[in-house]
């Protein structure tokens, strides 16, 4: 598999009181079109990842909305897999090129979350979990990941300090990222002492509520050099599913969907985890990054806490993780996240990540999760 990324665009992530969903999506899309130096009319199709515009702003049919606002009449497809909507949109865009139907595709992700009050957002987000057998009993997303955390602590001795260090690292990276919602460094103590949301997770273990959009221009690999001297290629794509409800899974401390999606992506790319130079993983909660580093193979099962202790995942570590600041510090506009991860990896592979730049970044990975792990999507990027 080989498809080129020839353009990227992203809005500031944060609370955009003055902007609506369509404006955010169009801003990201227009930036990507400019970056790719193509004309809008060169685009053959639009894929838009969005989790819940129906509940956040009352609007479905958002891909056609964006296409119309861009003055295009091309196929426009909204793709949804909860918080993995962006990653899935990217896959569908890739498939549409590999199928021979399209040459150039705009792939975006967008979410407008702050038009609802916080409890409304909490409720809407539970649409990613099992409505009848989890949400019905008053569960929240923090509590689902808190239960993963508690079990991980029980089975592997993972500590609250290790989780807090994930937040500290990602806030540090975010402080170097101009689009990040949070630009302030934090300390382990601040994480541990912040408001308890769902034991053992505090507010600073959780990614925030965010508005934002991101976009990529994909292009058939053979055509890429026509548009840019510096294309980044996607060389592997894996996706897998698991039961929607956390309680139905084989394990509470491994996301089998991540393991399976990663295996497929590595195989397609013809690489092993050792070849990865930089990765954006789905840290919706601090524990999620720890579990992800294990499930993706950056360390053995149960040693994710040790990995963060060793500093291996810092900007200058063995395997820098979430150089953008992750969902934790950049923010998590759910449908946009998977595409924002790709934007960061493209910046890293192009050598345009400025103060966050990782040395000799040739191969990068994105890992995007839906819900508590019912969907996982992994992509491998190469210069």
């Amino acid at each position, binding site marked *: 598999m080989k498809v080129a990324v020839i353009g990227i665009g992203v809005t500031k992530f944060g609370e955009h009181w003055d902007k609506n969903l369509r404006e955010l999506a169009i801003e990201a899309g227009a930036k990507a079109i400019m970056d790719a130096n193509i004309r809008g009319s060169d685009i053959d199709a639009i894929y838009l990842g969005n989790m819940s515009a129906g509940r956040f702003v009352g609007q479905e049919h958002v891909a056609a909305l964006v296409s119309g606002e861009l003055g295009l009449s091309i196929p426009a497809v909204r793709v949804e897999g909860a918080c993995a909507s962006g990653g899935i949109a990217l896959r569908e865009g890739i498939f549409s090129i590999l199928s021979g139907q399209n040459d150039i595709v705009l792939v975006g992700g967008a979410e407008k979350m702050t038009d609802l009050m916080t*409890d*409304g957002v*909490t*409720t*809407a987000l*539970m649409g990613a979990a099992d*409505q*009848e*057998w*989890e*949400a*019905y*009993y*008053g*569960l*929240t997303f*923090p*509590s689902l990941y*808190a*239960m*993963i955390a*508690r*079990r991980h602590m*029980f089975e592997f001795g993972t500590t609250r300090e290790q989780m807090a260090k994930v937040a500290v690292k990602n806030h540090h990276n975010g402080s170097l990222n101009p689009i990040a919602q949070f630009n302030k460094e934090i300390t382990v103590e601040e994480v541990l002492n912040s*408001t*308890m*949301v*769902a*034991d*053992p*997770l505090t507010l600073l273990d959780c990614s925030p509520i965010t508005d934002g959009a991101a976009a990529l221009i994909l292009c058939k690999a053979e055509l890429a050099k026509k548009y840019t001297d510096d294309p980044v290629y996607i060389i592997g794509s894996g996706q897998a599913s698991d039961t929607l*409800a*956390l*309680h*139905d899974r084989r394990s*509470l401390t491994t996301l089998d969907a991540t393991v399976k999606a990663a295996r497929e992506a590595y195989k397609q790319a013809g690489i092993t985890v050792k070849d990865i130079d930089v990765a954006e993983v789905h840290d919706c909660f601090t524990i999620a990054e720890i579990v992800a580093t294990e499930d993706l193979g950056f360390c053995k099962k149960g040693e994710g806490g040790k990995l963060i202790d060793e500093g291996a995942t810092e900007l200058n570590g063995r395997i820098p993780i979430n150089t953008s600041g992750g969902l934790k510090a950049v923010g998590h506009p759910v449908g946009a996240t998977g595409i924002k991860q790709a934007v960061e990896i493209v910046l890293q592979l192009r050598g345009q990540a400025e103060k966050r730049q990782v040395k000799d970044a040739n191969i990068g990975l994105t890992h995007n999760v839906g819900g508590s792990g019912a969907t996982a999507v992994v992509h491998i990027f190469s210069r």
Partner: protein
Amino acid sequence: MGHESSVPLFWRLIKPRYQLIGTKCTSCGNVFYPPKFLCPVCRKEGKLEEIKLRKTGKILTFSIIRSAPAGFEKETPYPVAIIELDDGPKLTSQIVDYKEEDLKIGRRVEACFRRIYTDGKEGIINYGLKFRPA
């Protein structure tokens, strides 16, 4: 739960929610709760029948919710857990009638019938099973 729920949405699930009635596949012997419509192991070769499960099990993991979704605000803080029933299936519910030391992995619990929450829009009171230390 916050969804503008209708009556059928709830009474449809009364039986499994009130009585811990799951399904058993007579082909592979697996027991499922929440009940399945199709055996996920045998699929078309499977045959499901209803089975009433024993009310006992143990806590596999838990959390205490301090920031609640719409409809549960007044309940905070409330503990939730994933429970493995003695009959095999795992499920998610709330823990009630507990002392602090009961909230631990491995604690044995049993199901009890309780009010879950009142639906704001239509005032429907939703019931179901919670779990208490056994």
